[in-house]
């Protein structure tokens, strides 16, 4: 299975880096940019053919290590 996990700061948690990137885009003349978020994507292979098992394993990985639930939210996709 191919796994793709995307992790980003929750809405409401200030990301000074994202703010700076957004401001930089505006300075370059790209008008109308707002709400820029910076996220992180993890991709990996998981040796199982059982989708439900893969999903529960990925969820556990997120909760145990990949995500800090205090400040981050996540989503993931599992594909053959």
């Amino acid at each position, binding site marked *: 299975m191919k796994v793709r996990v995307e992790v980003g*700061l929750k809405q409401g*948690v200030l990301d000074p880096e994202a703010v700076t990137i957004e401001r930089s885009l505006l300075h370059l003349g790209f008008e109308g940019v707002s709400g820029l978020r910076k996220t992180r994507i993890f991709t990996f292979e998981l040796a199982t053919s059982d989708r439900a098992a893969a999903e529960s394993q990925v969820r556990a990985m997120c909760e145990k290590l990949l995500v800090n639930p*205090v*400040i981050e939210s996540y989503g993931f996709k599992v594909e053959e």
Partner: protein
Amino acid sequence: MRAAVVTFPGANRDRDLVRAFRATGFSEVHLVWHADAELPPADVVGIPGGFSYGDYLRCGAIAARSPIMRAVADFANAGGYVLGVCNGFQILCEAGMLPGALVRNVGLRFICRPAALTVARGGTAFTAGLADGERIMISTAHGDGNYTADEDTLDRLEGEGRVLFRYVENPNGSVRDIAGITDASGRVLGLMPHPECHVDPRTGHTGGRTIFESLLQTVGRG
């Protein structure tokens, strides 16, 4: 009194913490390797500053999941005192031993300069020798010292008197100027600036000394 300081790969302030414990009267101070599953007999455990695991993933994230941290959590639950400084504060948050998280400084810069702190609550295990409102000068050295937590958590921290130190001039964007908090038991302190830098008059300030002496007094009382 005995202290143990944990060394993680990438920690660079572990020896400073050892020196500070020794200089303030702790008679036995041990360094413990992160891969160990057990702590030596100790009254206080120090989680040092630095860049454990190169700050990979999130600051403190990997170190928080190392074998020794399970022993540190057990130690705290059994009544032990834990002092986490800088990266140590980040590790304690990542390990779930302290609430909230430390994120990138507002302004994005690594900040390395002395900061004046206000003692938000004196007379605790870590501030026995300090009075409410007293000011101490301690150096900061961090890129991710911006403390954040949800409003309910912050209200609870303040209501329970768990905010021990605040910045006089907030250098990093921390909510409510928070520089140091304890867990619900009051025995686990996370502090962003480095008290271990300031136990010797040769460093210019000795503002950190009282924190170690308070701990010594606290554990000495039993």
